[in-house]
């Protein structure tokens, strides 16, 4: 057999495996999409288009307050962890010097501590120091620790080719540091910042482990979904899950389009 033919066989075998795995990843998501739209959620084939479970979801006041809490938590976490991640990225890439690797390891460390450990250890700290059961602020901070590493890695991976001389050139030409940041750096690094914001937002929107131990009785969407799970899955949960998946899909698609547009400009 010539190497050309065996190359082609290897390529198609790999392709088949990749298709299989993507099917494994997406089949449950598509399945619950159909289930949320059907009056028979257990076996929704052939598919129907029945929006009853979405109507019930929108009328459910528990989900409404949980949604608002989650939105607040996720937005604050996304901004906080992206700002910190941006500082860390510039610090490591531009001013890290010989210690760059040390700081990179430190900033990636929360990735190697599981979410549940972050949750219970933060809870232990606040309890020991302040006898405090946890509130929105502590939940935002603990979520930001977890998301910070993702933000740092995303921005570092997208910014390591950034040419710092551009900032200096702007300053030499008379721009203030703030102006050189706003008009030079921000527009160029925008996709990285957006990617980081989206990732942190979605991770903290959907994460249960950290918020569960730090929010006490305040309901968030994952905690309400988790509570509902104990009494069996209801079609409303399928509807909620489908909506979140659609939002995530839309955000990632938007990010992809913005990267493509950026490339065309360049």
């Amino acid at each position, binding site marked *: 057999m010539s190497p050309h033919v065996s190359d082609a066989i290897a*390529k198609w075998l*790999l*392709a088949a*495996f*990749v298709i299989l*795995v993507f099917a*494994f*990843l997406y*089949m*449950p*998501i598509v*399945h*619950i999409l159909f*289930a949320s739209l059907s009056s028979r959620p*257990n*076996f929704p084939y052939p598919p129907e288009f029945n929006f009853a479970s979405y109507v019930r979801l929108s009328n459910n006041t528990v989900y409404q307050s949980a949604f608002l809490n989650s939105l607040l938590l996720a937005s604050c976490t996304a901004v906080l962890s992206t700002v*910190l991640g941006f*500082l860390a990225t510039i*610090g490591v890439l*531009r*001013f890290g010097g010989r210690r760059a*690797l040390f*700081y990179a390891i*430190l*900033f*990636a*460390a929360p990735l*190697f*501590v*599981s*979410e*549940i*450990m972050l949750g*219970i*250890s*933060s809870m*232990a*700290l606040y309890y020991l*120091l302040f006898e405090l059961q946890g509130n929105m602020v502590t939940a935002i901070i603990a979520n*930001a*620790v977890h998301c910070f590493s993702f933000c740092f890695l995303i921005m*570092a*991976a997208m910014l*390591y*080719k950034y040419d710092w001389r551009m900032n200096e050139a702007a300053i030499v030409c008379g721009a203030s540091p703030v102006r050189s940041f706003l008009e030079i750096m921000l527009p160029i690094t925008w996709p990285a910042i957006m990617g980081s914001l989206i990732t942190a937002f*979605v*991770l903290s929107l*959907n*994460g*249960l482990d950290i918020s569960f131990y730090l929010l006490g009785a305040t309901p968030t969407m*994952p905690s309400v*979904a*988790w509570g509902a*799970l104990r009494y069996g*899955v209801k079609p409303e949960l399928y509807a909620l*899950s489908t909506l*979140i998946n659609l939002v*995530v899909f839309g955000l*990632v698609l938007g990010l*992809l389009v913005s990267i493509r547009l950026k490339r065309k400009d360049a």
Partner: protein
Amino acid sequence: MPNVSLRQRLLLYVPSGFLLFFFVFPLIALVVLSFWQTENYKIVRELTLNNYVTLATEGAYITFFLRSLMMAVGVSVTLVVMAWPIAYFIVRYGGRYRIILSLLLVIPFLSGEVLRLIALQGMLGPAGLVNGMLVRMGAAPLRLIMYSNVASFIAFIYLYLPLVVTTVYLSLINFDFRLAHAANACGANRFRVFTEVVWPLNLSGTLVGFMLAFIPTLSASLVPRFLGGPNGTLYGMSMSQQFGESGTWALGAAMGVVLFLFSALALAILSFGVDLRRTGFTGMGRQ
């Protein structure tokens, strides 16, 4: 320039300080708590080793721990074996669809553990798609995938596959494939090119991916609680129960310390093989 050194300090010290206060201090608090006692839902502030003695002698906790360890090793090894062909395919043959294919991996990862478990339950549960199909075709439902360790295993694979593929992908995309071609031109066959060039040079990224699946699996609590069934209790699930239903915080904290130490040990062993510059993680390898 004094200005630069001030800015430099701020840029690196603000995130480091944040991590010190809200990442390192909580872990220290957990260690302190683990040496105290809980009696009647109240914490007694006296140094004692009782929690660790309980964990080391009571059979149930040892069983939970060994089960967690086996599950974590099995899941991580399976994930690495699955992730390599996928990442390799995307890097070598993805062409201009590379970004789309890698983002398609991100979408399931971002939709969150709880919602993904709900979706998976829709597939594997007693009334789920797989068993629904089997019953409709006249076969008996598969008991194996309902509320068992096998169900947990499938769930872990489903949850962490995107993370591992992405790490291996990041490593491979920074790998210079001309090295493989050079080895090939020098007469190495495909197997030798892989074992002597491609695999060793991407080992760092692979090990990072392994750890990113190993650590959350070792301390998982949601998956076993929801899918594990009667014989599926894992260490992390037992730990979360100490903080929830049974209210024995100090014992739970000791379990947390055990999990943390084992994760750190695994990290230390594997980090002998890791050169962060080669993981493609921060892109520093190309500077």
